[in-house]
């Protein structure tokens, strides 16, 4: 096994994250393994936001005074950093939203209302997060379109064997996750993107998990849209991103209306601003964009390729150790064979009880359906317990997880 320490200086990284250094109760230090739900924030990000409020804050755009100019520069600078981070062709292709969820809704509604006709088809996958299902279901219902799902294999991979059938007929949009927040599966989307484009469909990629864990290049991927959230990638809550190819964004009608997204308003109607501002109505999440820019700087400095490699090693170690723990009513882990990402699951006892007992030992995991009910139904489960890792987690923390699982088993050993 690779020495993980050569990949990342995790001890130094941990020093950047104040929240990690606490005890959940006296003598029981925190082990934070709920990263797929949201990541923690380094001091560099927390301070970037505070400093911005302490020195430069004002409303952006149009303001002819020092603070407003500084704020505008910081806000638009964060847009440029974000564009570079995912290798967008231009910063004009980056729309700031609240979260990945809003990014999906923006496209589903603005693009969908203008483009979907009765009988048209939207193709999703069975492993999507609700954020990449429900907005499409709603617009499909409104427009009389049909929703189809790429099935998931028993191994937790996309089953592309029936792709020809799925893509037959008037398919207009294929929306798929880049990395499952439940299985950890990383979907190599290139084939799907090509097939979708071949039949004239657009491709919407849910990058909420992938962008935080691995290098993502939208141009190489040839995604038409990509959605992700700042809070899962060391950034503040309250900021998300929609990447869209410029000509597609330009052709779309606006989503929310109000100040800053217009060129002109009369009592009769309005003219829209250029992209991306056309999609940013009202005062945006200014300080949060600045914080996201700081998160992008942070992750870039560490290196996304190193983060991904490190997490793979850590995950390998966790899966290995989990095999030691005798299963309860099921296996502790559902390892995914290929392209696995940063999560794992424990079966057996009720996930709520496992999570509660792990918390008793300081280990923070998530129990539930992880906003992926259809995927759980696919595996005949209602809930799972998920431990998910990030750049600041260590092998010692994996050991703490394993110990805590033994403890949980002992409590329920009747």
């Amino acid at each position, binding site marked *: 096994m690779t020495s993980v320490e050569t990949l990342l200086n995790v001890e130094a990284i941990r020093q950047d994250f104040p929240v990690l250094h606490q005890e959940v109760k006296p003598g029981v230090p925190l082990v934070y393994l709920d990263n797929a739900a949201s990541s923690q924030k380094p001091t560099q990000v927390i301070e970037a936001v505070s400093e911005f409020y302490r020195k430069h804050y004002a409303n952006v755009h149009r303001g002819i005074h020092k603070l407003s100019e500084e704020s505008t520069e910081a806000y638009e600078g964060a847009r440029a950093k974000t564009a570079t981070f995912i290798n967008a062709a231009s910063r004009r292709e980056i729309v700031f939203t609240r979260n990945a969820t809003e990014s999906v809704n923006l496209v589903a509604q603005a693009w969908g209302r203008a483009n979907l006709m009765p009988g048209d088809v939207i193709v999703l996958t069975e492993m999507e997060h609700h954020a990449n299902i429900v907005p499409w279901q709603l617009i499909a219902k409104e427009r009389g379109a049909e929703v189809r799902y790429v099935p998931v294999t028993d191994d937790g991979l996309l089953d592309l064997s029936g792709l020809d059938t799925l893509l037959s007929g008037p398919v207009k949009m294929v929306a798929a996750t880049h990395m499952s927040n439940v299985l950890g599966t990383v979907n190599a989307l290139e084939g799907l993107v090509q097939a979708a484009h071949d039949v004239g469909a657009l491709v919407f990629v849910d990058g909420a998990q992938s962008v935080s864990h691995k290098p993502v290049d939208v141009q190489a991927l040839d995604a038409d849209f990509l959605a992700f959230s700042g809070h899962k990638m060391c950034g503040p809550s309250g900021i998300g991103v929609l990447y869209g190819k410029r000509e597609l964004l330009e052709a779309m009608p606006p989503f929310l209306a109000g100040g800053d997204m217009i060129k002109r308003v009369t009592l009769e109607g309005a003219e829209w601003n250029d992209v991306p501002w056309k999609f940013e109505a009202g005062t945006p999440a200014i300080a949060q964009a600045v914080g996201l820019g700081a998160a992008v700087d942070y992750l870039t400095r560490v290196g996304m390729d190193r983060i991904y490699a490190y997490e793979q090693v850590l995950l390998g170690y966790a899966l290995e150790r989990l095999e030691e723990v005798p299963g309860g009513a099921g296996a502790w882990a559902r390892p995914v064979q290929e392209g696995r990402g940063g999560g794992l699951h424990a079966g057996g006892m009720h996930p*709520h009880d496992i999570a*509660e007992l792990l918390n*008793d030992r300081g280990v923070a995991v998530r129990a539930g359906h992880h906003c992926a*009910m259809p995927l759980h139904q696919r595996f005949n489960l209602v809930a799972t317990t998920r431990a998910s890792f990030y750049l600041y987690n260590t092998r010692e923390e994996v050991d703490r997880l394993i110990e805590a699982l033994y403890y949980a088993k002992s409590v329920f050993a009747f």
Partner: protein
Amino acid sequence: MDMYRELILDHYQNRRNWGLVEDPDIDYEEDNPLCGDHLHLTVRLDDARRVVAVGWEGEGCAISQASASMLGEAMVGKTLDELKHFSKDDILEMLGIPISPVRLKCALLSLKILKAGAYGLTGWPGEEDE
């Protein structure tokens, strides 16, 4: 271990009044989709509208199952009117451990089903502070 004191584990392991009663006067089932908890409660009353038999089945976490088991025991012998007065606090007292806001829904599922089944009341008891 303080989260799961003996009594709760005991009720979870040996659920009292397990199995549905025949010819029930109250028969109601519901689930909490968020957790996947499911509960089916049946109650038979005598002529004085007093509970003579409680039977239930369900699945879910230790908290939801133990609370159903404890509530079922407490119901026997009570009048319909007395049933109405079972409160959130009664359940929390029976469980005897601190319940976090997230798990309140687990703890109160049985009470919710009792109220909905017996009185057609909807909404979570104590939902304002969930």
